[in-house]
């Protein structure tokens, strides 16, 4: 881009200047859209249309009778038409987030973050947002089953009780296999089972294991627990392949903390972030310095950093082989300078690496500053060793009974196949999984658990920080909460709610200052969160064998020299073979929610691919493959003797000699949405130092075949016009000197007698502007705090009943997302230096830009609509009247931002989309739809409405209370779900509103109230020179890099 001497490109094909790209560059819509992709031609359509008109007129002879069916007994707190909000807690294995659930007429329809949580502060992830649809998953079990036949809970209890007794009598193990259980009451229920049957053993594992970290902490501080990290206090952050914004431990929490260090609205300092990793992760994309490091060198890199710091601190060094890693010296220098205000994390599951990381943090005095050992996180407690032991015991036949507590190890554990075959040797196998998944389908008894939105529960997310869950809907099916089942099988009263309440009464009655326990309990339920005041945790319940409860010692006692020796043995600086780095992506995560189309169609923030996993390959390793807009080839990937076919995706930033593959795909028994999507990477997980290793450094080979494949990427779909001024960025140093750095405002030539005959594009207009007497809604997007996590996209989809269209239609460029996040790669190489650019492309800078309808005050779409279906409101909104729209698509043609979406099909009640879009095609799925938003039909245009239903509701509430609208009361779905506060929505007519204050909004002199200018030096409008005057304003991206980056 000329104005800031940077070149941006959307994909490699554009950078390479492919003839096809050049050909298509002038065109707004690609040629490749075919009409007969779905088995019906235009002629069929006309025939059908003719018939349906006839049929419709016949059917219309009788006026339809519509019924109004009231409650028999109206619950006191439900008023039809008014939403209720309940604080609750999201559970998915070890992922626990405090949430607020919005219900309408008793149906949960939206999940948002709980702002009262001191951990996440209202932050949320896309997976949590999407979980509300999993409640209405049609593949959920309808009730208990025995030997694949429907049964009753009485029979299940009888059978399980008998068998457990017999197994216990024989002295054989009763194994409870789960992911991390963060609920103290659930642990207590398992402990109760243990009391009844002495051979009960609780084994926990995590899909993305943190076992190595736990063991390292055990060695270093005496407790196998994960301390709580505070990124907000860190001036220098160094991460070795820990994707802490995307999936490592607690992304919703870390995103919020991290964004505080990137926020430049009130200060002029920023954290500096180094990322050393093989795959381009979401965190790496946000780093100031990102260095591609092969997995086989990772341990050496950590050891080298340890030695660099040790030489400054005067500590003893570890002896490992040397390795050349860019920026490592620089990182060490800065870490040392920011002693006590820095943070080093590693995503490695190798205990030796983590011991050294602990050693580094100890030398940097980060413990007690950015790392708090006294309030450990309880969301990762899985132990690889005990799981391994379990599998071998199972195969040996010494395990008499297995209860899978919402765990699916047959799919998501590397020894899944061994577990499936070993189950035959157990007398009893039970699964409480909600779906008859890979594990449940090989179990005798299915005792399905409730969805978390139907359940009572509690969680100790961090020591002393509790979160409670309350049901927001009665169980949809004949399911029973798993802890209830445990209590029933233990021969106790199966009422888990009273059990839970009793526990709380016991634990906290001493510190209750609110009056009776009921008052205390009601307050806790209302808030959803509770922080215990006593320093010693009142809840000392952990049923697993891992010791995570004891207080850690404050002094570091890790054996660094042993760790160094281990690293010297396991890592090599000059591994010549291909290495596989298995990772977890932002949308699908570990795959437990894979049957959720909201996540399948959520474009990966980096690759922008949907509905697939793929082998990410460095440009240099692509073996001559040229990818063009998702068209790629399949590769034969061989890992330790197993060969599978997987599509190749060329990924800038991928470390040379490595390939990446995401877990969470390749499900076979998840349901219609996920089955057969992608390949399963779990079986490839190997082992280092007794714990799982996601890095496979030997025995990997791949060959790109001739078989064509298409990956449904949204990456280059109508992202922007081929003009400059889409993105503005600068460096921190420049920003400190001049806050407007990198934000050269464009000027246009004029006949007016101004200086140089040039004026700001907004100053000239053919239009007269609008009078916004009351409100002027506006949105500010800070490109510096936005990290691309995509929670906003899911939130928008759920709020606005946006259909999911499936892979075929994404390939046809017909995805319906109102909000997209454009991901641009850039580098400092000269615009004309193609070779330099190509090199830079191996590890480019990344910028994320959320893009939705810009609600232009001079909207080009409005002027071309022949039927006035889109027009302007007196509050600054660009409105869309679906029933007026006749589908000419002129508006989409005329939109400079390409944010309008056309309904090519009827996505609801349409067999063709029943798999990809169950929320509009099954009775169950339809319960999630927002009743305040129309479900659009075929042939109409749609786009972001600024959540006009929320605006209207907020205004009405103010009118009912006879007052003005308060700032923050009206918020759009995307902004309310943003964990970083990067999106700020409000009334620009209100000078006190957050958005007005941030942008320093004022009305342009001599203009109508619609024409506002923003005085924040960082603010800019995308394509400002077009003069459409958007109501969405962006703030420049600032990178904390030194003037000249080395590639």
């Amino acid at each position, binding site marked *: 881009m000329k104005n800031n001497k940077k070149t941006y490109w959307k994909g490699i094909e554009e950078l390479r200047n492919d003839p096809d790209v050049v050909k298509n560059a002038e065109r707004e819509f690609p040629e490749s859209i075919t009409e007969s992709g779905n088995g019906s031609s235009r002629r069929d359509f006309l025939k059908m249309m003719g018939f349906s008109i006839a049929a419709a007129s016949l059917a219309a002879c009788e006026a339809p009778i519509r019924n*109004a*069916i*009231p409650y*028999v007994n109206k619950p006191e707190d439900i008023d039809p038409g008014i939403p209720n909000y309940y604080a609750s807690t999201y559970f998915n294995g070890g992922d626990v987030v405090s949430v607020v659930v919005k219900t309408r007429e008793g149906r949960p329809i939206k999940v948002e973050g709980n702002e009262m949580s001191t951990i996440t502060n209202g932050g949320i992830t896309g997976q949590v947002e999407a979980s509300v649809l999993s409640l209405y998953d049609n593949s959920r079990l309808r009730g208990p089953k025995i030997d694949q036949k429907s049964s009753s809970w009485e029979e299940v209890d009888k059978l399980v009780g008998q068998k457990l007794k017999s197994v216990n009598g024989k002295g054989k193990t009763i194994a409870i296999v789960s992911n991390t259980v963060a609920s103290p009451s659930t642990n207590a229920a398992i402990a109760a089972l243990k009391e009844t049957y002495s051979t009960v053993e609780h084994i926990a594992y995590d899909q993305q294991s943190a076992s190595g970290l736990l063991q390292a902490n055990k060695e270093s501080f005496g407790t196998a627990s994960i301390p709580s990290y505070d990124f907000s206090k860190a001036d220098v952050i160094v991460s070795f392949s820990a994707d802490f914004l995307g999936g490592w431990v607690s992304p919703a929490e870390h995103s919020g903390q991290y964004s505080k260090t990137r926020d430049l609205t009130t200060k002029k300092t920023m954290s500096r972030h180094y990322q050393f990793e093989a795959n381009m992760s979401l965190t790496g994309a946000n780093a100031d310095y990102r260095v591609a490091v092969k997995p086989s060198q990772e341990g050496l890199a950590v050891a080298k950093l340890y030695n660099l710091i040790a030489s400054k601190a005067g500590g003893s060094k570890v002896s490992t082989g040397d390795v050349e890693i860019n920026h490592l010296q620089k990182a060490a220098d800065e870490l040392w300078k920011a002693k006590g205000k820095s943070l080093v994390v590693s995503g490695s599951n190798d205990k030796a690496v983590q011991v050294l990381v602990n050693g580094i943090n100890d030398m940097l005095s980060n413990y007690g500053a950015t790392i708090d050992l006294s309030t450990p996180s309880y969301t990762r407690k899985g132990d690889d060793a005990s799981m391994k032991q379990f599998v071998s015991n199972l195969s040996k036949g010494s395990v008499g009974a297995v209860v899978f507590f919402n765990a699916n190890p047959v799919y998501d554990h590397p020894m899944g196949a061994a577990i499936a075959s070993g189950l035959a040797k157990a007398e009893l196998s039970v699964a409480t999984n909600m779906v008859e998944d890979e594990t449940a389908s090989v179990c005798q008894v299915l005792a399905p658990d409730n969805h978390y939105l139907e359940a009572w529960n509690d969680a100790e997310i961090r020591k002393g920080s509790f979160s409670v869950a309350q049901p927001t809907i009665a169980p949809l099916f004949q399911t029973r909460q798993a802890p209830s089942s445990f209590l029933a099988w233990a021969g106790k009263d199966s009422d888990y709610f009273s059990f839970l309440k009793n526990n709380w009464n016991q634990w906290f009655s001493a510190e209750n200052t609110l009056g009776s326990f009921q008052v205390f309990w009601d307050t806790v339920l209302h808030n959803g969160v509770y922080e215990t005041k006593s320093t010693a945790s009142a809840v000392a319940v952990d049923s697993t064998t891992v010791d995570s409860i004891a207080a850690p010692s404050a002094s570091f006692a890790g054996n660094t020299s042993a760790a160094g020796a281990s690293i010297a043995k396991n890592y090599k600086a000059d591994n010549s073979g291909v290495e596989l780095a298995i990772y977890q992506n932002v949308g699908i995560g570990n795959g437990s929610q894979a049957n959720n189309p909201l996540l399948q169609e959520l474009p990966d923030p980096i690759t922008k691919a949907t509905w697939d996993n793929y082998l990410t390959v460095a440009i240099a390793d692509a073996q001559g493959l040229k990818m063009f807009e998702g068209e790629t080839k399949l590769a034969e990937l061989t890992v330790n003797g197993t060969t599978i076919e997987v599509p190749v995706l060329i990924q800038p930033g991928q470390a040379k000699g490595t390939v990446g593959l995401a877990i969470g795909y390749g499900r076979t028994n998840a349901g219609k949405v996920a089955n057969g999507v992608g390949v399963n990477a779990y079986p490839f997980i190997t082992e280092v130092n007794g714990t799982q290793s996601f890095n496979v450094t030997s025995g990997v080979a791949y060959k790109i075949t001739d078989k064509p494949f298409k990956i449904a990427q949204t990456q280059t779909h109508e992202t922007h016009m081929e003009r400059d001024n889409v993105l503005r960025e600068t460096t921190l140093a420049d920003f400190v000197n001049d806050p407007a750095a990198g934000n050269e405002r464009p000027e246009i030539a004029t006949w007016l007698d101004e200086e140089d005959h040039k004026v700001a594009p907004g100053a000239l207009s053919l239009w007269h502007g609008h009078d916004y007497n*009351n409100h002027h809604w506006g949105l500010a997007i800070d490109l510096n705090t936005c990290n691309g996590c995509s929670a906003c996209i899911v939130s928008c989809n759920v709020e606005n009943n946006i259909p999911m269209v499936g892979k075929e239609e994404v390939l046809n460029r017909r995805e319906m997302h109102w909000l997209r996040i454009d991901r641009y790669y850039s580098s400092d190489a000269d615009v004309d230096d193609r070779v330099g650019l190509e090199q830079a492309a191996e590890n480019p800078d990344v910028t994320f830009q959320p893009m939705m309808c810009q609600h232009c005050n001079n909207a080009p779409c409005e002027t071309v609509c022949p039927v006035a279906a889109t027009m302007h409101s007196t509050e600054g909104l660009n409105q869309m009247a679906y029933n007026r729209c006749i589908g000419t698509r002129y508006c989409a043609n005329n939109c400079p931002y390409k944010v309008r979406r056309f309904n090519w099909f009827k996505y609801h009640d349409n067999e063709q989309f029943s798999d990809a879009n169950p929320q509009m095609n099954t009775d169950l799925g339809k319960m999630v739809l927002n009743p305040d938003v129309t479900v659009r039909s075929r042939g109409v245009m749609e786009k972001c409405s600024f959540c006009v239903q929320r605006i209207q509701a907020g205004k009405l509430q103010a009118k*009912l209370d006879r007052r003005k609208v308060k700032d923050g009361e009206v918020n759009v779905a995307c902004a309310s779900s943003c964990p970083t506060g990067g999106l700020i929505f409000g009334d620009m007519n209100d000078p006190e509103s957050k958005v007005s204050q941030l942008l320093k909004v004022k009305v342009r002199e001599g203009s109508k109230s619609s024409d506002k200018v923003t005085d924040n030096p960082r603010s800019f409008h995308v394509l400002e020179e077009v003069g459409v005057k958007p109501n969405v304003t962006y703030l420049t991206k600032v990178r904390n890099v030194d003037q000249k980056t080395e590639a």
Partner: protein
Amino acid sequence: MTIGFHKARKIKAIIAFALVCIMSSQFAMAQEASSAGTTIPTDEASIGNGKSLFSANCKTCHAIDKKLVGPALQGVYDRTPSVEWILGFVKNSQKVIQSGDAYANDLYAEYNQTQMTAFADFSDEEVLSILAYIKQETDNPTTAAVAATATEGGATEAGGDSVSSSYVSAILIALLVVLALILVVLVMIISVLTKHLNNKEEDLSEAEKEVTKQSFTMEGVLRAKPFIFAVAFVFTALAFKAVISQVYSVGIQIGYAPEQPIKFSHKLHAGEMEIDCNYCHTGVMKSKNANIPSANICLNCHSQIKTESAQIKLIYDAVDNNKPIEWVRVHNLPDLAYFNHSQHHNVAGIECQTCHGEVQEMEVVEQHSLLTMGWCIECHRKTDVNVKGNAYYDDLVKMHDEAGKGKMKVEDIGGLECSKCHY
């Protein structure tokens, strides 16, 4: 579509008007016959006076058409000994009973010796005016207003109450019978004449023979002009009906008064008992939905009152079996339109009756307003914004006053914009 709709309305109105004229003249005759020999007044003033007296004093115990605490008063002037007797009984019933009057004593026994309050203060004229009102109600019960299609426009203006549909069908059947008889007679005459002519065949000319020996062929029938005309007419009529039905399905159905699963009377509850609309329609002040009341709201009163009624039993059934009552929606807005009751009733202070009509006088609820977008817009153009005491509108009012464009209407603050109702 609108043209079709207007035509339909006009034609319907004309038919209804004609029928009503016939009917009301019949009623008028009947009335005169029965009122002969009594002193019950028939003038509007007395009836009106009687109505208010009835509402104020009688209706807690009496209804016109059903037994409450006391007997139904329908035709009371015919079954009691005399109008004078009624005057005496109303003023002091115990006196009449004690006098040994047989009718009064029977009545007293039948109603479990429930004493009727003595209305000694009533003048004879007042009691007579009440009787006048009862008579009016007996002869022209408001419940006859069910005939949905005939109540609008010309029909109501014609002065008579609406036409019972059974009369219409009776007249139509009679007409058909007469037509069929005429047809039979004509056929008989033709056959007799043909026979007669055939007998004297030799006397007829060739031309006359052709007429008598005419044979009917299918082709001839199909080509006959009257046949083509008839088919065309039937087709046009059906097409016309289809268009009308389509208009109905869009929801333009003023006067739509479907039969409900329970014969709930708004007239009784909201009108005579003066129960506030809010009492049952709980959402109207705070929600988008006014709410069809749930069965438990009915039971707030009906666990005590009129527990024996067959209709109330239906409510008990619903509660006992936990099966909600499936009311038929009268006011149907399409899904694409967002309407919020609290905005209009609570914020704007619009009375229920403005859109729903005089519900308190409806035995069966019917659609009063068009409920089309044009109707909404019309109102938004005309209506002043209710800004009194609402700080939300302060700035808007100030700016509007500065612009000096008169009173601030809903359209002045964006009330005609698409996204106010469609999203």
